């Protein structure tokens, strides 16, 4: 078990700052997911932790030891790559034992560790095959096994499931979660897939432009995104954003867009004073209720219906802006139909339009 502490980490390639003054504390046995769009620096950060990239400034501590200048092999880490990165000319057994032979461990110890890892990952029948003779899922198991046999405290995953098809991905996702529960290692997992992030993580670090935007548990990230970027990035189908400003409706603060007013009573956060400040209201599709027209709801027009099996996504025109709502399938709504919408202000998010921060 080991903690990871990253202090003021900076990495530049020439004039380009990929990571800027990055600080991150990872607790013992924690599963941290680094999430962000491509080019946000999440893989770079992982490579820095692994020691595969030299940092420009700052420190990295693993298990209380300053490893900033250490070689990857001396950092007590195991790493799993997106492309599996199995040595093609070696058998599975050879792949698993390569690192151990480099450590000059005794033969019996190597055998024992391979046997244990193979048992955990259920790749025992594959040990004498070459990587070319394995399927994608099997290859990734072997790649995980290669990290496993090293008997390290920290596992680093670099988009390990991105090369797999959807079905295998969800299977292996569960396996990785089970593995974490079983081993209780510290794990750092890089992905651009928010489902992986939300399902696996103890805490998620959402990154953009080399900066961590929000570091919190999945529920907080989902329900209280700290800024507009996180709100838009997390959630599928994504959050709808409505432009408007703050007004006062009968003494209580309210959100006004066009000629419609949405009450904000019970909003979870500090609503700014009713000074007409420009704001953006973010509403998740599942928090919008659709009722019949004229039944006290806010008027909207149905645009497009997207049935998705378990539920249905309805796109609507609301005060000249686009809004989506998640509803049960078979709702019988047709394009052009007038409906009345209901918002739950306790579950909405309000952002300042200039700073894009959540109130």
């Amino acid at each position: 078990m080991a903690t990871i502490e990253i202090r003021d980490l900076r990495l530049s390639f020439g004039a380009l700052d990929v990571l800027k003054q990055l600080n991150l504390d990872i607790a013992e046995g924690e599963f941290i997911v680094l999430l962000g769009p491509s080019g946000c620096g999440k893989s770079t950060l992982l490579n820095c932790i692994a020691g595969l990239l030299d940092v420009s400034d700052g420190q990295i501590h693993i298990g209380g030891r300053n490893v900033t200048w250490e070689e990857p092999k001396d950092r007590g880490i195991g790493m799993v790559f997106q492309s599996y990165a199995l040595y093609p000319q070696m058998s599975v057994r050879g792949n698993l034992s390569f690192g151990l032979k480099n450590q000059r461990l005794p033969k019996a110890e190597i055998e024992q560790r391979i046997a244990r890892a193979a048992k955990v990952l259920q790749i025992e029948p594959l040990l004498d095959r070459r990587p070319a003779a394995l399927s994608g899922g099997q290859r990734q198991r072997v790649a995980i096994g290669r990290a496993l046999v090293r008997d390290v405290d920290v596992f680093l995953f670099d988009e390990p499931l991105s090369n797999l098809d959807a079905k295998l991905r969800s299977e292996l996702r569960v396996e990785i979660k089970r593995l974490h529960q079983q081993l209780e290692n510290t794990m750092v997992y890089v992905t651009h897939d928010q489902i992986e992030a939300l399902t696996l993580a103890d805490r998620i670090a959402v990154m953009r432009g080399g900066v961590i935007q929000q570091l919190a548990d999945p529920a907080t990230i989902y329900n209280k995104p700290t800024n507009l970027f996180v709100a838009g990035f997390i959630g599928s189908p994504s959050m709808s954003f409505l432009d408007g400003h703050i007004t006062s409706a009968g003494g209580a603060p309210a959100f006004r867009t066009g000629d419609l007013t949405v009450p904000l009573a019970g909003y979870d956060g500090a609503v700014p004073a009713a000074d007409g400040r420009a704001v953006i209201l973010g509403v998740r599709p599942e928090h919008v209720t659709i009722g019949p027209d004229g039944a006290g709801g806010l008027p909207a027009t149905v645009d497009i219906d997207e049935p998705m099996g378990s539920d249905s996504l309805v796109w609507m025109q609301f005060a000249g802006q686009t809004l989506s709502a998640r509803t049960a399938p078979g709702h019988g709504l047709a394009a052009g139909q007038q409906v009345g919408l209901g918002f739950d202000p306790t579950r909405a998010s309000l952002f300042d339009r200039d700073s894009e921060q959540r109130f």
Partner: protein
Amino acid sequence: MANPQILASTVVGADAVAGRLDGPTGPRPRRALSRRNVILYGTLIVIALYYLLPLYVMVVTSLKGMPEIRLGNIFSPPVEVTFQPWVKAWSEACTGLNCDGLSRGFWNSVRILIPSVVLSIAIASVNGYALANWRFKGADVFFTILIIGAFIPYQVMIYPIVILLREIGLYGSLTGLVIVHSIFGMPILTLLFRNYFTSVPEELFKAARVDGAGFWGIYFRIMLPMSLPIFVVAIILQVTGIWNDFLFGVVYTRPDVYPMTVQLNNIVNSVQGVKEYNVNMAATILTGLVPLVVYFFSGKLFVRGIAAGAVKG
């Protein structure tokens, strides 16, 4: 889709061909003598003949006696097959003071070839590996200089190298020539290996580093076993290049260690006595045999290696 005619014919044809619709079925028939094939294969055959005819003339001439050659029918097969010219070319032809034929040159060439090929490929592959995977400061500058080296005409460097070799006492020796060949092979071979190693996924290299392998560990245990095709290409390039070299051989060695090509020239271009065309032909074929054999036995690997290494920048 719902063409009424097809529907109608389906009903009729259903009995006859068990449910198949009218029209083409299975693979499209191809005519062997289509215009495309005739032009394609015709061109190939003509070009093949164009290249093979000189070889044919050489072989038949080398198997004739001098009286028969004097008749002038260079395309006619030998009436009386004789291997005497081959024997003479290999072990009796005179160049300068030595009269032991091409065999001397052959063994000289072998003694030049093997160390040159091994040395140049060993160094260039490590160069390429370092340039591709261990990016050091100034790597790009180093690489650019190396590539420019490939474009400098050899003639410019001949005399400076003569002086250099003289100063270190290797001028005229086989060792000197081996060094020259190794150096001149460096730019193109390094480029070849660098491009090949660049195409190896970077994650493989990273995984090996996490697994604790160092510079040589990764080179010998990961990279080398993966790069057989590019080594074959390098070997072919070097074997044919060095074997066929004439310029460096004649400049940097002395007559008793002349490579085979230089000796061949001396036999064929000797101005004394009768021109023995049959011996000359036999000597030429003997000299060209080594590259020919290399090409024959490595054809497929050669193509694979070229495709894998040389294309990607």
